């Protein structure tokens, strides 16, 4: 039997998807601000963050309301928990993207960026793909795709490490650009964190599908 309040869960899921789309949009805009050296895109990304923050508050409120009034159990209960935690991850993606936009704006204020961005473009492509894949999983849950998404996080971690080493090397050769190189290194770290949050979302979706927490477990044990 479908209860009248089950539609509220669909609404909650729809809000999460909207929030995820906004997170993808802010990430895309802030990264384009960096790659195209466009201050207006940076400003646009910074302006988007409030909407994401408000969506997190709404999702939290609706999830708490459902938890209190509808006595959810089983997959309904798991969806409530996943909604709250995923809302936090999307909100953090908004924060990291805002951080990328603000750092870029600060660098561009001093003039065009002529430094080598190393693997930042490749990292941003991976993180956007990961976040987009996480959103697809909300619409069509798929355990294999969720596990594959978690495994991609390592690639972004490796690129971040390469960036850190590369920017550090440049500081030695070009100490005058040390501040800019530090900003780029922090942008790299922000992208790495976005990938972590996208991975967290995939892990939450695995929990939603399987009912098991997978943090700290090997991929092999998840598949079994």
């Amino acid at each position, binding site marked *: 039997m479908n*209860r009248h309040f089950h539609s509220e869960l669909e*609404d909650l*899921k*729809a809000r999460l998807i909207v929030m995820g789309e906004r997170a993808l949009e802010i990430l895309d805009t802030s990264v384009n601000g960096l790659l195209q050296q466009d201050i207006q895109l940076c400003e646009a990304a910074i302006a988007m963050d409030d909407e994401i923050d408000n969506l997190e508050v709404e999702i939290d409120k609706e999830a708490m309301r459902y938890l*209190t*009034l*509808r006595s959810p159990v089983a997959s309904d209960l798991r969806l409530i928990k996943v909604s709250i935690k995923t809302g936090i991850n999307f909100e953090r993606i908004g924060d990291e993207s805002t951080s990328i936009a603000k750092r870029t704006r600060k660098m561009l204020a001093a003039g065009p960026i002529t430094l080598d961005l190393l693997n930042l473009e490749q990292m941003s492509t991976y993180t956007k793909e990961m976040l987009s894949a996480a959103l697809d999983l909300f619409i069509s849950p798929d355990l294999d795709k969720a596990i594959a998404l978690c495994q991609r996080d390592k690639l972004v971690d490796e690129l971040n490490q390469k960036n850190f080493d590369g920017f550090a090397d440049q500081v030695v050769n070009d100490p005058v650009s040390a501040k800019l190189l530090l900003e780029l290194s922090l942008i790299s770290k922000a992208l790495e964190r976005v990938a972590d949050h996208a991975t967290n979302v995939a892990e939450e979706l695995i929990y939603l599908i399987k009912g098991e927490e997978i943090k700290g477990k090997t991929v092999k044990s998840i598949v079994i």
Partner: protein
Amino acid sequence: MPIESQPIENILNRAEDTYEEKATQIEIENLSFWYGSNKVLHHLNLSIPEKTVTAFIGPSGCGKSTLLRCMNRMNDMIENSRYEGSIKVMGQDIFDPKLHVIELRKRVGMVFQKSNPFPKSIYENVIYGLKIAGLGEKSALDEVAERSLRNAALWDEVKDRLHESAFTLSGGQMQRLCIARALAIEPDIILMDEPCSSLDPIATANIEELIYQLKSRYTIIIVTHNMQQAARVSDKTAFFYLGELIEYDLTENIFMKPKDEKTEDYVSGRFG
């Protein structure tokens, strides 16, 4: 339209639409009630909006069922009972000596804790009130019986056995039959005194869904000991303790951020 394709405004505005304020249908003013010398309701004041579900909750003996029975003057039959104050239903004082109690009960129907079908057929049970009121034309009675059973979500289950005894129905079906009987007289208000207390979870869910569907046309007041049920089905909740109204608010406020410490203790199970 799949929810993913709907404009975000539609989704975001839905929650606010749910609790729009409605006109008052029942106004209880300074109501006190005694069984003999025992005062069981103390100066109650309560405005109940139309076409909503209001839940009365509280520990046994708090007066919630007494108040419910005051609303269609079921307590009149209890010797040595008396009241002070007033209850107005759509502006009419129900204690007005000129008001005929039968007329009141046509407007304020009641469903009891234990389903109480008459020892008659399913059909006869539904139309009993109308027959008593003198409506005898068969086609009209048939129409009311079908409409009432449909509105009580029972028609599909009984349409081929209308003339079988009501006692052949399951507990949940009997309770829905009693709701159909209450609906047949076309009341404005339906009082429900623990309507699911003797039903299994599936029959309970059926009644709760029925309550949700009926609230678009009727004002429903439900007394329940099951707080999760109050949370699931009602728009507003009143918490009573020792004959006093402790708190009355939107259900989500009562269960998420009650203002009174007694309400907090009761809904969180810390009472006593």
